[in-house]
């Protein structure tokens, strides 16, 4: 996917140079291997910082909330869906945006890569088509990208952007064969006590740094429920029930809005797979309401409209 880098730079240079956008939001190379940093470019001469590779994992829609400039931005499938949600939820206007669409071949799971390197320190990373190479002190490994995709990328069914002003490459085939919810289905068959202990265990390392919440482009409330004091919905300690309450409510706030971009899991400092919460909601939204978030500007968000024929079987 390195091939997109040149195109992004070229177009960003033109867009900034011609004054079509005031700023351009993309990624630049980070100071740590497998880590790219979101960046906002203001001058055409700085566009060479921009890049695209398989480590562009943070969701850039995060950086659009309530901005007022004209913004150029790169967007792959999930990011573009979050841009749609941002537009629908009035966090940004469509005509403020110039979107460079990126048909996405997935991003890589840095934790899996580190595991493959026996958790040795990495000093360098490069990629070439379907392979990438990691280097450390005295070792070098070339790995197949498809074997190291992030779990959400593996089951992604919207790799092509759903909204863009120009597409930087030919659309990639969508992966419709896989079942994105097989893990959820597995857990659904378990008895309640198994489910409870599964989730208790899942969040047991949580330090409530809120990285999952803040990395999520859906979480832009001026005052989060965890900060409300009248009434206070949830305690602030790392008491397991408070932590669980936080995770349930955080996930539920994403109900009908989550694009499964995986930013929450990617940023977690203790590697909690908290998508297990949101995926259940995504699955139910799909099954009960035939809903996937952020696919089109034409429909209101899931909880913002209804049908009289909506699912009613659970109500007496």
């Amino acid at each position, binding site marked *: 996917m390195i091939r997109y880098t040149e195109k992004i730079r070229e177009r960003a240079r033109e867009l900034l140079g011609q004054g079509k956008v005031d700023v351009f939001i993309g990624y630049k190379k980070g100071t740590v291997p497998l880590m790219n940093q979101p960046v906002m470019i203001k001058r055409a001469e700085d566009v060479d910082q921009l890049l695209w590779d398989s480590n562009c994992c943070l969701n850039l829609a995060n950086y659009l909330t309530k901005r007022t400039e004209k913004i150029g931005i790169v967007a792959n499938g999930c990011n573009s869906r979050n841009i749609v949600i941002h537009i629908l939820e009035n966090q940004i206007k469509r005509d403020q945006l110039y979107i460079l669409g990126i048909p996405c071949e997935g991003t890589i799971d840095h934790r899996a890569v580190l595991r493959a390197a026996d958790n040795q320190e990495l000093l360098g990373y490069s990629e070439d088509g379907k392979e990438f190479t990691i280097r450390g002190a005295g070792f070098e490994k070339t790995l197949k990208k498809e074997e190291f995709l992030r779990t959400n990328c593996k089951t992604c069914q919207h790799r092509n952007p759903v909204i863009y002003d120009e597409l930087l490459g030919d659309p990639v085939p969508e992966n419709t064969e896989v079942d994105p919810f097989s893990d959820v289905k597995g857990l659904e068959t378990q008895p309640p006590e198994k489910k409870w202990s599964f989730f208790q265990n899942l969040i047991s390392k949580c330090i409530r740094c809120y990285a999952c919440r803040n990395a999520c482009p859906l979480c832009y409330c001026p005052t989060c429920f965890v900060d409300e004091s009248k009434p206070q919905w949830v305690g602030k300690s790392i*008491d397991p*029930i408070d932590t669980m309450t936080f995770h349930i409510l955080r996930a*539920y706030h994403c109900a009908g809005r989550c694009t499964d971009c995986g930013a929450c899991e990617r940023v977690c400092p203790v590697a909690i797979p908290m998508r297990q919460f949101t995926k259940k909601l995504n699955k*139910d939204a799909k099954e009960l309401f035939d809903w996937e978030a952020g696919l089109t500007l034409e429909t209101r968000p899931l909880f913002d409209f*209804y049908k*009289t024929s909506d699912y009613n079987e659970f109500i*007496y």
Partner: protein
Amino acid sequence: MNEWSPKITAFLCNWCTYGAADLAGVSRLQYPPNFRVIRVPCSGRVSPKFILAAFRQGADGVWVSGCHPGDCHYLEGNFYARRKFALLKGLLEHIGIEPGRLHFSWISSAEATKFVEVATKVANAVGALGPAKYLIKQRAEVA
């Protein structure tokens, strides 16, 4: 006489189910005494946070009841509520809250008999599960 009986938080819409409860009362219809009723202006007012707060504070069950679809005093509050609750119920059950703890119903203010039926059903369902086990906030587990 120390037999356990369930505590159930009931969020009842002011315009319908709350009236049905009233009507059941004046009609001298018997229904289980396990409910702590919270009168709300609409089932659409019931935030998932309320339901979680009830469970956190030790409710063995939660019951939300509003007007029949199409009869909402605010025209469509219960339609929105229905979507919210469908996903919430799924999520809570997925994390381990037993399916019989969270109940929803549509009961108009004239349906005292339905109120009694549903109340009995809810109380029996929660009663059968025994005391709530999960998501109850105890004294903080901290150092």
